[in-house]
């Protein structure tokens, strides 16, 4: 009974916080006054003066896209170099060496694309300098770029006969200054109060109460206690749907997520901005019902996923239960499948996190997905493969879902024989082509990537489990990269030249192809005139539309991935039954 209460309250708190935040973001996007304006407006003007940006400049979609791409390219290049030469830079008390070129490329691509896939463990690989001046920065700017592109798309949908879709520099600056930094400061201080570390001191060694004897006779008497500026990065990794852990175990690590309260704050942070953006959207198109419709479609997908995963994980497995010798149902414990889960989180809190993080493009984990039950682990896989449009990443989730909405009105229009319209704008072949690019980029990247990897003999050496579960580990890696998610079946060793490069390329493809396509739609929609609503107009805010939209999302996902899923998690599930 307590579990049901936890699930319900997590969702309720999320939505209650997202509604006012959505209104706030709408004001920030339009450059209106908010309560932080007095403090932040001088900083904002300072940034524009240094950049010599004219606030009133209105960019066409090509220039907007050009700025986004060039800026990201610079981030990618500098971040890659930073990783490779970290041994020459300050704030490296553990004396960690520079990383290999392929790991540097993979990590740079990963953080610039808001994926935050990690082929390494932070505490054993990266210096404090790389973490804060490299990764933390990308956590902010990659989220802000996603939000900026969404703002541009919303302007494209609402403007009539105009060429411009906004100014990239002001959109990014405002997102960072007014939304991401204030929220991150609040969340990171709250996290420190719970025990998340935040310092620049070298790793501590402490004396073990019981020394450990190794097989070769050595006595291990000390334990390493990793340190570093973790809280500041953990806050923005959640808020910006980034997800890259400061430590290898990500948010399962007690130094990233020590208590149920820290967990509550981080988990709400994962989805609060993506959910808020649905309401921002409704406000900006002057029709709140449009935002609510998109919100409901996303929420229904999320609740469905949550239910299946919760039932599977609470059920546990026969292999764990040992014909009753192990208690997985009793009092005073969480019960269910606790392999890879933390005692303080139990099942309800772990499962809610997992569904939140894979329906957003966050990818941080507070339990190890590799150790989920077959079907429990398939749901996060499927959520990523649907293109992360059930809320999705900051900005990119909603612009992905809007592409599905365009696809839906097109298909519905075909059925009744009318020219499709969305928000009073005619949808024509050009928009359809761009929407298809957005909807299909994810399946293409995942299936081609994992298809090639499945052919290579060396893939088997990277697997941690054998058989169908091993296949799931590999499929999960490409789904995570191809969904810009970043979570992992973490037993999989992805730190090889082939996986680092191929996964890096997948991430770049899936981030930037849909981004440019969304901006192209924005540019073309902004130039169109508005058509009057008539009796024959398909409503895009009623229950039928919500149902159709969910149907299309599931259809594209299911048709693309059913064969692959049946080789992995479904096969494992059936084997377990036998």
């Amino acid at each position, binding site marked *: 009974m307590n579990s049901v209460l936890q699930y319900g309250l997590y969702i309720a708190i999320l939505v209650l916080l997202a509604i006012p935040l959505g209104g706030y973001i709408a004001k920030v996007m339009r450059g209106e006054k908010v309560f932080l304006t007095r403090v932040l407006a001088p900083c904002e003007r300072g940034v524009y003066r240094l950049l010599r940006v004219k606030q009133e400049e209105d960019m066409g979609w090509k220039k907007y896209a050009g700025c986004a791409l060039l800026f990201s390219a610079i981030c990618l290049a500098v971040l890659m170099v930073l990783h490779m030469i970290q041994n020459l830079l300050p704030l490296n008390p553990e004396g960690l060496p520079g990383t290999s070129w392929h790991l540097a490329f993979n990590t740079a691509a990963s953080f610039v694309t808001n994926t935050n896939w990690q082929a390494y463990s932070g505490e054993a690989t990266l210096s404090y300098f790389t973490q804060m001046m490299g990764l933390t920065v990308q956590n902010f700017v990659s989220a802000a770029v996603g939000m900026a592109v969404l703002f541009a798309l919303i302007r494209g949908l609402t403007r009539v006969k105009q060429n411009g879709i906004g100014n990239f520099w002001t959109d990014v600056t405002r997102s960072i200054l007014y939304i991401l930094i204030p929220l*991150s400061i609040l969340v990171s201080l709250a996290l420190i109060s719970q025990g998340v570390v935040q310092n620049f001191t070298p790793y501590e060694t402490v004396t073990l109460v019981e020394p450990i004897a190794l097989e070769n006779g050595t006595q291990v008497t000390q334990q390493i206690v990793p340190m570093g500026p973790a809280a500041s990065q953990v806050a923005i990794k959640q808020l910006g749907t980034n997800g890259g852990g400061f430590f290898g175990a990500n948010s399962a690590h*007690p130094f990233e997520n020590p208590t149920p309260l820290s967990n509550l704050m981080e988990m709400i942070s994962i989805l609060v901005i993506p959910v808020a953006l649905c309401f921002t959207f409704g406000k900006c198109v002057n029709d709140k019902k449009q935002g609510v419709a998109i919100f409901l479609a996303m929420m229904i997908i999320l609740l469905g996923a949550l239910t299946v995963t919760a039932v599977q994980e609470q059920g546990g497995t026969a292999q764990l239960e040992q014909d009753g010798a192990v*208690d997985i149902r009793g009092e005073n414990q*969480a019960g269910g499948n606790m392999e890879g889960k933390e005692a303080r989180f*139990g099942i309800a809190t772990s499962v809610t996190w997992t569904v939140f993080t894979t329906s957003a493009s966050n990818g941080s984990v507070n339990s190890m997905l590799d150790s989920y039950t077959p079907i429990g682990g398939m749901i996060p896989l499927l959520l990523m493969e649907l293109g992360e449009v059930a809320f999705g990443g900051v900005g990119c989730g909603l612009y992905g879902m809007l592409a599905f909405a365009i696809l839906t009105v097109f298909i519905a229009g075909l059925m009744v024989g009318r020219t499709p319209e969305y928000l009073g704008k005619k949808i024509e072949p050009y928009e359809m082509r761009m929407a298809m690019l957005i909807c299909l980029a994810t399946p293409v990247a995942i299936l081609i990537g994992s298809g090639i990897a499945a052919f290579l003999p060396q893939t088997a050496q990277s697997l941690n489990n054998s058989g169908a579960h091993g296949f799931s580990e590999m499929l999960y890696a490409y789904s995570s990269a191809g969904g810009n998610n970043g979570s992992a079946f973490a037993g999989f060793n992805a730190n090889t030249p082939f996986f680092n490069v191929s996964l890096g390329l997948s991430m770049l493809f899936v981030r930037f192809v849909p981004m440019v396509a969304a901006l192209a739609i924005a540019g073309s929609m902004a130039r169109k005139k508005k058509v009057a609503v008539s009796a024959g107009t398909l409503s895009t805010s009623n229950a039928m539309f919500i149902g159709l939209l969910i149907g299309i999302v599931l259809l594209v996902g299911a048709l693309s991935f059913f064969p692959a899923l049946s080789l992995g998690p479904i096969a494992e599930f059936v*084997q377990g039954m036998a």
Partner: protein
Amino acid sequence: MKTIKEVVPRAIAFFLMMTLLCGGLYTLVVTGAGQLLFHDKANGSIVEVDGKKYGSALLAQQFTDTGHLWGRIMNIDTETFTDEDGNPVMYAWASNLSPASEEYKELIAERVLKIQEAHPDKAGVPIPEDLVTCSGSGLDPHISVAAAEYQIQRIARNTGRSVDEVQAIIDRYTTGRFLGIFGEPTVNVLKVNLALDGILTE
């Protein structure tokens, strides 16, 4: 071409500015405030008694002594980290094993046998699963209340303490759910053991 000439320097300048703001200034402000307001927590929640550091309250250690409370199964790593003199030091990671495989079934069966042998008084009572599973971080400092209670008689027998005394120590280091709702009630294994050894007294 003209646009590229205009955009590239601006993108570089913006990148540098954001690096200083979001990487430098933001991290320093949070570190400063955190160190000032929550000094112990920001530095790893180290348990220090009379100048000796016994561990972090948030990171598990492995306990196998019959007079100690046992925690989650640990997937110990002594190869990644070393101290200044090059001696191996302990860390741990998740198992990442599938809980639905035959190998896993055999692994759990071994652990069950070991625990049953150490707890003859619990013959026929199913073992709380925290004691046979590896956690998500590999460093989970807690176990469930059920898993702690399962061990009380063994600890009492091997330490010469009464069952009530052991129970009282466990209760002292048990944390409930947040607001009685979120998360799960847990027992901090390291603190219980330091108290059993007479090191931690409050």
